[in-house]
């Protein structure tokens, strides 16, 4: 127990010197991680390895929702040792994706890993012979069952991903999702690009639908590393943009779900409503998805009192129409029939695979960075999390509506109680001096769930490793689970109800 108390714990958006992170033996590391992750309030936000000299340093960050801090643990696998470790996934299934990623990137074999398959086939993978076409699909030998493969390019205009269904008639027994068709190497690019503006632009393009989420996480990481203090107003502006992004994407998702349920009236109206929100973002920063809005150290587009009036007007109009349409849609028996009890993920399953964000909250798990690890914005203007119990498509559908309402209320509260002042604005600062040999971690609750950016600097104060984690990493497995014993024709609504990110996975 002694060991548990002496673990290094930092807050969200805090940096720590590398040598302060104690390197444990793998046995200790293993037992402490198990100990920590058995508690319900703890979950792993990121677990990665990076080359330090020739050795591999493993770093795991475990967020504690109760104490509002993050435990950092580390161990080193020497290069001369046999590159294999006992798998943590055996006991904590939620870690499967991280271990798979490490296995893919560095060729470390995890013994007894139940599902040791490639994640994203990046350019810098350890085994270059690993080809996407040789992905080892799970299969069942049976006369009655048949396999249906969809993708990587399929009918809807979405990103590439291959879905392999094992079906019994119309019923899906098992779904396996194979991603990794994009080979972007985002994390490596962060290191290759030396100018911070380039890096900033890169962060904007990690996932097109989570621009604000990822960029905020990036900016916070860099500012933390540089010890750059930014004003409360800037924090609030970013949070505002984040909430607007949430409202926009949720509205769009509700519309998209209506499309898949063939409720075209709802689809059109929600589509129109989404436009109102993103048009406001365009008015604010010139880009509908909020690109160029968040910059490290400051912003070119400060929020003004004029914009406030504009925003409140827009929201009033939006809310009226939204409530009207939501009232119609959510009470429509045919819509309820379509979504009810489809693709249920129980709380137990969700905890097992370690879902985060919306996907966790819809099966009654309270996971929300805004509440558990708030930054200044959410400390000053607190947010209350909503959870639902059922865990089916309808729960996800409903939760989107409820979160939209909650976000609007949050924005209203902010607008009412905060005076935006031009004096407090800061211009972006790309010449930040990063502290050498430091590790910084930043968590942001984007609309899909927690985004985690973690950066490590070398002795020169340059980035030596940059780690991005998109919430989709956790949640893809939940989609696979929710398809169990569901009709194959219900796949699209399930998929849409999660609306997970392909590129967030294929970094």
């Amino acid at each position, binding site marked *: 127990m002694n060991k548990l108390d002496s673990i290094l714990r930092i807050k969200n958006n805090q940096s720590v010197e590398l040598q302060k992170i104690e390197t444990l033996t793998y046995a200790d590391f293993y037992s402490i991680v198990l100990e920590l992750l058995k508690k319900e309030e703890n979950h792993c936000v990121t677990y990665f390895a990076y080359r330090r000299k020739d050795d591999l340093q493993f770093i795991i960050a475990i967020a504690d929702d109760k104490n509002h801090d993050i435990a950092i643990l580390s161990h080193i696998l020497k290069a001369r040792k046999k590159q294999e470790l006992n798998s943590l996934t055996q006991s904590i299934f939620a870690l499967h994706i991280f271990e798979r990623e490490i296995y893919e990137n560095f060729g470390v074999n995890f013994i007894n890993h139940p599902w040791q398959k490639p994640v994203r086939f990046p350019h810098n993978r350890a085994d270059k012979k690993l080809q996407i076409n040789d992905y080892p699909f799970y299969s069942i030998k049976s006369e009655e069952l*048949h396999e*249906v493969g*969809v993708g990587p390019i*399929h*009918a*809807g205009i979405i990103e590439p991903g291959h879905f392999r269904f094992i079906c019994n008639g*119309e019923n899906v027994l098992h779904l396996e999702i194979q991603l990794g068709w994009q080979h972007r190497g985002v994390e490596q690019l962060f290191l290759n690009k030396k100018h911070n503006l380039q890096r900033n632009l890169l962060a904007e393009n990690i996932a097109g639908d989570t621009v604000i989420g990822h960029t905020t996480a990036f900016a916070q990481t860099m500012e933390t590393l540089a010890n750059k203090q930014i004003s409360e107003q800037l924090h609030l502006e970013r949070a505002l943009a984040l909430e607007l992004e949430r409202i926009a994407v949720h509205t769009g998702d509700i519309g998209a779900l*209506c*499309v*898949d*349920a*063939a*409720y*075209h*009236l709802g*689809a*059109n*109206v929600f589509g*129109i409503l989404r436009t109102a929100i993103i048009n406001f973002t365009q008015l604010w920063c010139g880009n509908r998805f909020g690109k160029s809005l968040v910059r490290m150290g400051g912003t070119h587009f400060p929020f003004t009192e004029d914009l406030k009036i504009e925003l409140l007007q827009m929201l009033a109009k939006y809310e009226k129409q939204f409530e009207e349409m939501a009232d119609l849609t959510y009470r*429509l028996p*045919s*819509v309820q*029939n*379509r979504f009810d009890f*489809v693709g249920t993920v129980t709380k137990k399953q969700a905890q097992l695979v370690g879902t985060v964000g919306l996907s966790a909250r819809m099966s009654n798990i309270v996971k929300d960075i805004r509440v558990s690890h708030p930054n200044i914005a959410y400390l000053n203007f607190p947010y209350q999390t909503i959870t639902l119990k059922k865990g089916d498509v309808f729960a996800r559908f409903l939760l989107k509506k409820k979160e939209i309402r909650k976000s609007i209320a949050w924005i209203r509260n902010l607008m009412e109680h905060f005076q935006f002042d031009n004096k407090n604005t800061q211009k972006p600062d790309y010449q930040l001096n990063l502290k050498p040999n430091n590790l910084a971690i930043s968590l942001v609750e984007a609309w899909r769930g927690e985004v985690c950016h973690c950066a490590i600097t070398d002795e020169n104060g340059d980035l030596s490793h940059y780690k991005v984690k998109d919430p989709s990493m956790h949640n893809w497995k939940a989609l696979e689970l929710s398809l169990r014993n569901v*009709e*194959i*024709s*219900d*796949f*699209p609504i399930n998929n849409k109800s999660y609306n997970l990110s392909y590129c967030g996975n294929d970094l």
Partner: protein
Amino acid sequence: MISFLLILVSSIFFVGIIIKVKAKIAARKMPSVFQPLFDVIRLFKKGAIYSSTTSVIFKITPLVYMASVLMATLFIPIGSQKGFLSFEGDFVFFAYLLAMGKFMMIIAAMDTGSGFEAMGANREALYSMLVEPAFFILIGSMALFTHNTSFQDLYMNLHAGTELTYIISIAAIYILIYIAMIENSRMPVDDPKTHLELTMVHEVMVLDNSGFDLGLIHIATWLKFAIYGGLISNFVIQTTWIWYYQITAFLGIQILFAIIIGLVEAFRARNKMEKNPQWIIMLSAIAVVIFLTTLIITQKIILN
């Protein structure tokens, strides 16, 4: 002959009206009523592309399908305007003509060897099979009621008078509207606008058809709508009316029918796939109620 022409004419704008209604409700810009026609003309200008795995069946199917529907059209009377062809028991022939077209479509879909198309064909075959009893029980009851077995005589002798005959007419119209929706793979059974193969029924079957063939299939769909519209309108049109009243009424009912379909599609979501069979068999159940009503009217069942 006139009835045949009327159906042909009404079929041209039928789907256009549906689209227009849906667009209007969704507050979108409405396309022209003839937009589907333009689309088909565009398709006709193109040649068809055939997959190398398909056989001759796939190639002739659109023609056979079109021909079967066209032939079925010949049997439909409108008011006192006789159908082109008519003989005792022609409604059975009519149903099997349509079934043959559908059968060809199904085996053509199988012919492509695509898993998706087989899945769609599978579903479509099931639904057609389930909808069959409803149609036969309905028309059978009508035949029992009027003691006639051809469309022509059947409708000629259909006189609504008492409240029970009204209820038969209303229920029959209800069933026919939904049979039309199912046969044409519209909502709530199928969504013609879906973009995902996994949820498609009819659309996935014609994925491989292109150009001229696709155009034929579209036209056949319009015709089928118009046929059922014709069948429905006959429940309203009285043979005693003057001919231009009859024609106006027919066109009016066709438009109304299209609008109803548009409204249904706009204002509800589609069924869960697994709920479709039960939903379709419900039509047969209602048809049985019509049958029972007919038995009461014709005093085959005597109650006091």
